[in-house]
């Protein structure tokens, strides 16, 4: 009896093993097909600490849900090497489209070839990469030109045509250098004798320290251009606590971050301008561009230049509310 039972069990075990192997084989062949039913789009955004990030992702996820795509996210913490590493990890795991805000456009170029080898799409946003399939380029240089002209007008009209200009910048991010260089050029075009003073600061705590130092060296400085809105918040705090008068002051930043827009809307005497991107449109398009490419959409929908809007104290509050709605 015992022997028979053992034999049955062995047979059952053999059957079960066979069934298991067959099942695993079917699953191995079938799962990739199932997985590929939902296309995977990987978004490499370098800075999730940025105030505009959540608005951007809200719009991207909403669009992905509409299109039936799966979205993968990563954050390199503003480190170009880490960004390359995370992009390579995604490529190894298999994705259908890679959407990247490249911290170093040149370093990212070889990755485009790898993406194409895998028959995937490479979409860049903020700046452009050689060989990309589609892009949503932020018009950083146009924005810098616009802000530079605005600052020059401010210096002419409110500061008697003369004024030192401070810049908070960062040297290792192309978007930032484009913003700042073009602002320089636009101011110099109008006021060639303007003196520039620069410090490195990308975020609010660094912006606070850098502006404190700038104001010690140049207490008469009335114009401060910051490469990000977050940095502008630090500059604002430094001015506010310096005891210097806020009259005819111009602090400006880039991005269109929520806190900055709300301060401008409230006519804050320190923070005057934010060069605002349409964050909601960018979030939507980073998902829509792959869709258009997969479905033969027109080039106007896959090669997009995103303009900035100058939001200042003269901007109607209703217009600011429209931009702010993406943060809801």
């Amino acid at each position, binding site marked *: 009896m015992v022997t028979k039972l053992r034999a049955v069990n062995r047979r059952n075990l053999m059957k079960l093993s066979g069934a298991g192997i067959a099942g695993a084989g079917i699953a191995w062949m079938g799962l990739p097909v199932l997985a590929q039913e939902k296309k995977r789009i990987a978004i490499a955004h370098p800075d999730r*600490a940025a*105030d505009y990030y959540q608005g951007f992702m809200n719009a991207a996820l909403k669009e992905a849900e509409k299109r039936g795509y799966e979205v993968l996210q990563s954050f390199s913490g503003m480190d170009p090497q880490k960004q390359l590493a995370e992009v390579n990890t995604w490529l190894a795991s298999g994705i259908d489209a890679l959407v990247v805000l490249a911290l170093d456009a040149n370093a990212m170029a070889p990755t485009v070839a790898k993406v194409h080898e895998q028959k995937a799409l490479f979409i860049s946003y903020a700046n452009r990469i050689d060989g990309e399939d589609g892009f949503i380029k932020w018009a950083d240089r146009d924005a810098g030109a616009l802000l530079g002209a605005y600052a020059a007008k401010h210096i002419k009209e409110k500061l008697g045509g003369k004024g030192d200009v401070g810049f908070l910048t960062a040297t290792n991010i192309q978007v930032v250098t484009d913003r700042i260089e073009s602002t320089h050029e636009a101011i110099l075009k109008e006021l060639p004798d303007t003196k520039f003073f620069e410090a490195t600061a990308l975020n*609010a705590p660094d912006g*606070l320290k850098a502006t404190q*130092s700038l104001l*010690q*060296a140049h207490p008469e400085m009335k114009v401060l251009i910051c490469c990000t809105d977050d940095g502008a918040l630090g500059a604002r*705090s430094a001015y*506010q606590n310096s005891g210097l008068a806020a009259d005819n002051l111009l602090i400006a930043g880039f991005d269109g971050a929520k*806190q900055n827009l709300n301060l401008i809307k409230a006519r804050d005497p320190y923070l005057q301008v934010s060069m605002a991107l349409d964050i909601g449109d960018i979030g939507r398009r980073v998902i829509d561009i792959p869709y258009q490419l997969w479905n033969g959409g027109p080039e106007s929908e896959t090669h997009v230049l995103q303009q900035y809007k100058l939001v200042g104290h003269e901007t109607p509050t209703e217009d600011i509310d429209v931009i702010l709605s993406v943060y809801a």
Partner: protein
Amino acid sequence: MTRQQILGWTQRNGLFFALAILIAIFSILSSRFLTVPNFTVILLQNAVIGLIVVPGAMLILCGLVDLSVGSVAVLSAVVFGQAMASGLGLPVSLLIGLAVGAAWGAFNGYLIAIQGFSPIIITLGGLAGARGLAEFVTQGYTTYGYGREFAFLGNGKLLGVPVPVILFAIVFLIGLHLWYRAPLGRHMIAVGGAKDTAAEIGIKVKLIPFWLYVASGLAAALGGLIIASQLDGAAVTIGTGMELEVLTAILLGGVSFTGGRGSLFGVLFGLLFVGVLSNGLVQVNVSPYFEQVAIGAALCGAAALDMFYQRLERLNVPVESEPIEAPQAGEAQ
């Protein structure tokens, strides 16, 4: 002060001369550098790091390290911000913010000092984990607008001195007392220099580091709250790179990374050296493209000068030393 005492002090505080040279250079290059308002700003800019540096230096003296301070600072700030946003009121929100830092420090201390886990691995985990938690708590949205009372913490003045500078001075004076006057200072050196021997003579080789981690977490939380007060917002960027700033000041100040040797005055000079350098480079309008090179060169120069002065030890200057006090029987754990 005798010649030998002067030489002995020089050996231990070579960085002081590097700092003096740096101040002299910037004073020549910028007429606005050597002024009381500018030095007040330098102290204000470095007060937060200074608060964290004191317990941080004590940990390194014990042969340990806390790499999670920047992330604990931001976590405490955003938890404070959320508490304020949910209407808990300023005193309760402040206590919650500080408690978060102390709790994280206790967590670090328990795992590292009591359980013997690697301080680098655990606090690196904290560096990622606490910042991740802060981002999770905020979900990307910064809270701001905490009112005048809270603004006093970061922007207020008492007798013309900024509040953060006063807080730093208090913490530094307490640190000086513990480091040089209380038995704890010698016990920390013993824990960092020869832990097993220290345990044998009854020094609390587990409890001392545990409480230092709690102090480090608390100092980081206070630092985060001060920055949140200065910005009137609990941005998730608070504390970014703070651990490196803290380590730079401590190591530049001559505290041995393996523990057992160091001077709190050296740490103060290290802190001021970095602060003066950052401020001075802005004052003389160094191009941002050259700024990092200048910082690197100055730090290497300072370290070299410090090493040069330490080698004066070969002049055979006697340095006073005090015996380690053995605690009462049963005091050790």
